[in-house]
């Protein structure tokens, strides 16, 4: 009897999670309905006019702001994260590895509001002269140069996001790198490869889809990040003229305006939430696909990659798992 209680109780819990998400989606669509029926779904997403007083809600400036800031975050964050992951997993002396890894993961523990606080009162003012210098020098480049640099701007938001996604991208990259069989690395070294040539020959090709997956999980985070961006982006509901100008994002508009919103405005904010939801769903689903594919190829534990920083110490030593599963058939490994 208790067995069945346990079994069905736990099954009910699991099903409740499914129900919860579907329920949320349906209710969110319901709340967004007035805005969508007034402006149309396409009209809402692609109209460049967010004017609360005129009751006009076209979310294009928010969508573009979200894409610009999270794109910047990828551009700046991923190369650093992957390079740091390579350093920690392939080059770092063993004594320093543990400490450096923990420090890097602590970056993920800093609350978002603290990033915002630091970003607006330290980072943005300190970087403003440098940004202005770049903007002046590159005044002939559209979108980057020419304008007046404001303290809160797209670039600062992207930079803060880059710092925030760094630990996740790096942690997943490291997990994938740990599944590269020692055989492949030794094969390249035995051909007379240097460390870098070994990384290029044996490590990177093997990890490509896992790293892409990690980057996309980071992108998902960047798209959905709210509070830090709200603090440093300036919350100006128009398409920013240039990189160092103020903007807005989907998440920020909700955090900033929801408190005072009523009627159509509130519905438009729900609609913005829905767009954000769908956007992150797509990005995350793609990311999972890549990470799972990487995990399936190696038979390692990457399919279970949990993007939280703390999952690292919990996971089984990936190298051991990889050799245990990889030992069976040389041909089964596939591509």
């Amino acid at each position, binding site marked *: 009897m*208790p*067995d069945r209680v346990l079994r069905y*109780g*736990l*099954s009910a*819990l*699991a*099903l409740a999670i*499914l129900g919860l998400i579907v329920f949320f989606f349906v*209710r*969110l669509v319901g709340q967004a309905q007035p805005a969508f029926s007034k402006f149309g779904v396409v009209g809402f997403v692609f109209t460049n006019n967010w004017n609360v007083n005129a009751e006009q809600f076209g979310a294009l400036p928010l969508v573009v702001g979200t894409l610009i800031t999270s794109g910047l975050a990828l551009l700046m964050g991923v*190369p*650093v994260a992957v*390079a740091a992951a390579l*350093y*920690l997993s392939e080059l770092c002396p063993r004594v320093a590895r543990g400490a*450096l890894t923990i*420090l*890097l993961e*602590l970056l993920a*523990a*800093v*609350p*978002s*509001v*603290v990033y915002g*606080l*630091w970003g*607006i009162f330290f980072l943005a003012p300190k970087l403003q002269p440098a940004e202005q210098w770049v903007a002046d020098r590159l005044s002939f480049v559209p979108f980057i140069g020419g304008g007046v640099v404001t303290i809160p701007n797209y670039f600062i938001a992207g930079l803060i996001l880059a710092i925030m996604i760094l630990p996740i991208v*790096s942690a997943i990259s490291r997990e994938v790198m740990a599944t590269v069989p020692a055989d492949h690395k030794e094969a390249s070294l035995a051909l007379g490869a*240097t460390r*870098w*040539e070994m990384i290029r020959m044996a490590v990177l090709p093997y990890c490509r889809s896992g790293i892409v997956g990690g980057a996309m*999980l980071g992108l*998902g*985070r960047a798209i*959905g*990040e*709210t*509070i830090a961006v709200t*603090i440093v982006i300036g919350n100006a509901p128009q398409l920013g003229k240039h990189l160092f100008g103020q903007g807005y994002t989907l*998440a920020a508009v909700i*955090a900033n305006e*929801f*408190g005072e919103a009523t009627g159509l405005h509130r519905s438009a904010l*729900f609609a913005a*939430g829905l767009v*954000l*939801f769908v956007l*992150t769903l797509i990005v*995350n*689903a793609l990311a*999972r696909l890549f990470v799972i594919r990487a995990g399936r190829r190696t038979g390692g*534990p990457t399919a279970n990659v*949990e993007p*939280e920083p*703390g*999952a690292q*110490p*919990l996971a089984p030593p990936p190298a051991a798992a990889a050799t245990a599963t990889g030992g069976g058939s040389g041909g089964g490994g596939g591509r």
Partner: protein
Amino acid sequence: MSEDRLARLALSGRRKFKDRAVRGAMLGATVVALVPLVLILYYLVHKGLSAWSASFFTTDPTGQSFFANKGVGGIRSALLGTIVMVALASAIAVPVGIGVALWLVEYGKDSWLAKVVRFFVDVLTGVPSILFGLFIYIVLIVGTGTSFAGYKGSLALALLMLPIVTRSAEVVLLLVPDALRESALALGAPRWRMVARVVLPTARAGLVTGSLLAVARAAGETAPLLFTAAFTYKTSFNLGGFMNSLPVQIFNDVTSPTEALVNRAWGAALALVVLVLLLNLSARLISRTGRVA
């Protein structure tokens, strides 16, 4: 002949340079990645400590910041509100999260339903935290026609914690060797006893670690609380009413800044980071001392 070949095949300057340059760049990237952490911690301590005083922790924020630049009060209500709301959120999310993980590992396994559940748990991990706030708002505030309340904030935080707890618990439960399960079942123990006596105790350290990390994450979240628990100055233990929290108070102070409020924000941020880091470090210590299997 070999001697010539050894010399001839030695790394060319170009290859050697490339190797060194790339290794240097990777070390550089690691340093660059750690610079923000150092800067943030430095500024937090530098600015935060000067805001700290005994009364900082024992007084509520006053809201008298519009005309005077002093007497803005401390963070008592925020600190207590965070603790109370996160405690309730944990009380919900940890059992449910571990329960779902148990189902996945012990019953669902590789069935299609388990795959669907796993996928949706992954989806939940990727949902922006502000949407959890919106969700609770739609269901418990629009849906019931009532106002903000501490327990609604807790529920939003619990939703946020749930996938984190489930994911880490699943990893840990999978580490419990099947041989242990089988030997318990072979002794005639029913499955629930096997789970209660063998699986959970074996995985305990890992479960605690995962849960603590989820708690740390929830404690630092602002967005889910904005439209669920809202904001108040007063200390309150009434989960049915408005509640203050550290992240929300910091957010409010940052977005309507006067010098005194910004100083209070730094002090509160230092307190929040200390709280979160303590949770994080204790999670790591536990996972180090009590590893599964």
